[in-house]
């Protein structure tokens, strides 16, 4: 009859879950878990645990090897070792824009990137170009035997200067 509201839903009201629904849900859940598990395991497989890359922590001689107010490029590690009268720090030579290797230009007192023209000061700060961030400083410490040790996986604040 028009005007009479009929309650929607199955004739047998309440939450009657049939055995079929139950087994379907269990099966679906199991397959989902299996699928997710397979995906996670595959991604873990594809993520190498051992890398055959050059070590990221290295020794860089002693502070006496670096004259005061100099910028020295370590080619094998792509790191600049900068020494001023206040101390030393290690700068990444990889441009923060898109990963090209920068070059130290003593004539203009700048670190320049050939790819898109970014220019950095010896502190790592961006002077010109599209680089979004300053060149990161790597951890630089003195070992017991007086050698400089750089750790490229540890980025430190640019105010941290090793006093030598």
């Amino acid at each position, binding site marked *: 009859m028009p005007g009479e509201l009929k309650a929607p839903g199955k004739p047998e009201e309440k939450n009657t879950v049939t055995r079929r629904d139950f087994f379907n849900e269990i099966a679906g859940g199991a397959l989902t878990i299996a699928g997710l598990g397979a995906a996670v395991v595959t991604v873990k497989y594809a993520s190498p645990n051992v890398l055959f890359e050059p070590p990221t922590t290295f020794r860089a001689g002693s502070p006496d090897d670096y004259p005061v107010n100099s910028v020295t490029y370590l*080619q*094998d590690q*792509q790191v600049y070792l900068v020494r001023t009268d206040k101390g030393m720090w290690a700068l990444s030579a990889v441009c923060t*824009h*898109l990963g*090209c*290797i920068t070059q130290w230009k003593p004539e203009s007192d700048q670190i*320049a*990137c*050939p*790819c*898109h*023209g970014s220019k950095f000061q010896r502190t790592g700060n961006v002077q010109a170009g*599209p680089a*979004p961030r300053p060149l990161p400083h790597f951890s630089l410490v003195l070992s017991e035997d007086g050698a400089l040790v750089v750790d490229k996986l540890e980025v430190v604040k640019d105010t941290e200067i090793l006093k030598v």
Partner: protein
Amino acid sequence: MSEKNTVEVGISSDALKQPRRVVFITRKTSAKVKGEVGPQLMSFPHVVLRETIAFQILAIVLVVLALFWDAPLEQLANPLLTPNPAKAPWYFLGLQELLHYFPPLVAGVLLPTLVVLGLVVIPYFDVNIEGEPLWAHRSTRRLQVYVGVFAALFVLLALYDAWTVLVPTVLVGALGVVPYFNTTGNSRFQKFLGSRPLPWWVMTWFIAVALTLTAVGTFFRGPGWSWVWPWS
């Protein structure tokens, strides 16, 4: 709607008295573009033969070109020495040029993602099946929206100094609004412009920008991504 609805149940053979359901159209069926069918041919041999010929022509062209045009090979990869300039393959040079103006997150991730998403959703938009021209009704409201969007785009691009994108945008944008004001011209070109629907204009703008970006990235960019004239 209040007359008596007497429904007689029964099957009669008179279609006028008892219309029978022949087709059931669901509410959400999309309109299908069914072109005029026209004469048909058997795929074998007509299609197979033409495709074979097309493949042979292609093979000849490729082989002749490959005999004379050598693929480049530069020096051994040197992770310590970046060549200047370091350019991507030509189909990504447009992107690299865009990277010159916008930060990498925008030009490298956001914009390409938006472009791909835009391409994917094209057929699902309110499809203009009849291909109604952009200015069919000469609506002032539409003109306002058009000018508004154009102005916003202009300001954004000018803000970032992205003139490589700005120039084709201005060109296509200006061309797009010509049919609105042009009531007297009757040349084939003007008629053609006047009949183009909105999706056509958007795609043409996209292609114009992409071509300009790629051309600039290929020929006009030198060391440090600085501007060079290709003939210098």
